[in-house]
């Protein structure tokens, strides 16, 4: 008998929603035109792009001219960071960036690369819940600070940063400065669950991804507030107002537009997911000795569970769960070349044995209570078995 697959890795990627696929299909079939073409087929494709741009702009409460489609959220982060730094360097500034220790690699690696090129970087520490201290940010600001990039909700531990407060602080700071500090947030994990109104958030740049919101892979978008000086990274035919050349992925972008529109409709589902999340957390902590929740209980994405289970190694737990048809992920790095556990868990101050014994469950709109019950039925046995094999119990 084939067992039912239980997918609890929505933070890695989400399945494509049927209504999104329906929106995409015409552009993969009969409406295949190039949006740059003048003829009808081209214009149909152009309309598809326009519609998607409007949907994304509506969602973010911004103007359509402030939305730029990219090939991924990673690319959008790169465009925000490199694009802004490039333009400030053109003005002869030696730029300084403030970010955090718990960013996604798509922000950390561009910063690392820029450091090699002489850009100053400050990595803000986080407390044991994964929260940035606003006072630390305030202290880190320098005369030459041009960019603050802080992840809205962390992909591993689900901690939600005080983006509104940070936005306000930067607004006050900017009113006293000659050169503006721009504020970027990677909102990839936040879009499904949190308010992404850019006016309320006070951000100048915001990254989002289609495949984390039941859309297709290979599409991201960057919101760029009017007047922000961003230089392109890719040159060519001048697509996306010259900021991102390359014929648009029309079907993918149309999918992103539909996916983001659907989020409004599923807002009432968030409470349900949150309840399931709480059930999962509470019962893991109750039924598995020494298990510990990573991140914040209060400032936490509705769909994220991240626990450390000492004595049982993460990859082993993932594989054992997979054998039971349950897909989750871990911050352990037994399989990575560096053997270095997750930088996010280390930044929380976790010991190696806690970081290697971590599991992340990320829920989504197709998660049912019976899925959570199944996890709660099999996980304690798996942990017990692995602890029996392990020298640490």
């Amino acid at each position: 008998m084939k067992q039912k697959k239980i997918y609890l890795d929505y933070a890695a990627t989400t399945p494509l929603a049927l209504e999104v696929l329906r929106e995409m299909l015409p552009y993969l079939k009969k409406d295949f035109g190039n949006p740059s073409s003048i003829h009808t087929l081209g214009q149909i494709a152009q309309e598809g792009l326009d519609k998607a741009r409007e949907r994304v702009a509506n969602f973010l409460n911004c103007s359509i001219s402030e939305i730029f489609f990219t090939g991924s959220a990673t690319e959008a982060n790169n465009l925000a960071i490199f694009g802004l730094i490039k333009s400030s360097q053109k003005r002869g500034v030696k730029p300084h960036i403030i970010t955090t220790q718990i960013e996604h690699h798509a922000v950390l690696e561009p910063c690392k690369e820029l450091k090699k090129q002489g850009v100053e970087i400050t990595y803000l520490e986080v407390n044991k819940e994964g929260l940035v201290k606003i006072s630390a940010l305030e202290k880190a600001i320098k005369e030459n600070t041009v960019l603050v990039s802080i992840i809205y909700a962390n992909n591993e531990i689900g901690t939600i940063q005080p983006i509104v407060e940070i936005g306000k602080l930067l607004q006050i700071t900017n009113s006293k400065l000659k050169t503006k500090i721009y504020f970027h947030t990677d909102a990839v994990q936040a879009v499904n669950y949190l308010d992404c109104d850019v006016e309320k958030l006070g951000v100048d740049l915001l990254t989002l991804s289609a495949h984390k919101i039941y859309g297709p892979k290979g599409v991201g978008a960057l919101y760029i507030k009017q007047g922000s000086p961003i230089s392109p990274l890719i040159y060519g035919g001048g697509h996306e107002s010259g900021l991102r050349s390359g014929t648009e992925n029309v079907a993918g972008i149309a999918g992103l537009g539909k996916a983001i529109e659907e989020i409004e409709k599923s807002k009432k589902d968030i409470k349900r997911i949150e309840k399931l999340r709480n059930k999962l957390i509470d019962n893991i902590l109750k039924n598995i000795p020494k298990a510990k929740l990573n991140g914040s209980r209060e400032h936490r994405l509705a769909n994220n569970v991240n626990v450390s289970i000492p004595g049982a190694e993460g990859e082993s737990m993932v594989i054992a769960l997979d054998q039971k048809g349950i897909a989750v992920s871990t911050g352990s790095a037994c399989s990575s070349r560096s053997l270095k556990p997750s930088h996010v868990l280390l930044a929380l101050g976790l010991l190696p044995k806690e970081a290697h014994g971590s599991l992340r469950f990320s829920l989504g709109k197709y998660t049912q209570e019976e899925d959570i019950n199944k996890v709660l039925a099999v996980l304690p046995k798996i942990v017990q078995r692995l602890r029996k094999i392990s020298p640490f119990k």
Partner: protein
Amino acid sequence: MKKIGPYTKKVFEHFQNPHNMGKIKNPDGVGKVGNIVCGDVMWLYIKISKDKKGKEIIKDIKFETYGCLAAIATSSVITDLIKGKTIEEALEFNRQEVVDILGGLPPIKLHCSVLAVDALLEAIHDYLKKQKRPIPKKLRERHKILEKEKKEIEKKYKEWTKTEETLHEKRKK
């Protein structure tokens, strides 16, 4: 051999039901290798006795492993293979044998088989040392390397938790 993802069915069998798992009471030698920092720890216990010809053999062998499924599977296989072997035979053991029995391992997991052999060598080293007997050169040298690696890993961990640009005080209360 039939594969499920990058692993053979054999790997899963040993992961699911590992052989020779656990501790030996009053072992004659213990080998502790790997490091929790890297997420792989293997402890191997041996009990020595003499066979009919008076040769020393590994009468019993058990393991405790914290690590991925490849680490657990290689621990299980090596203990199977070594049980009943003479010390000389154990010292000459080739890790490829473990890999072959498992029907291969993904390249990134081959280090697990190195870990398993090191645990065995360390256990024999421990036994000979306790017996105050001469330790073969090869064994002595490998022991030295492993000790050195241990120190390097601990240093590395300190680096991981300390990013130069941060004003970080570690291990939050």
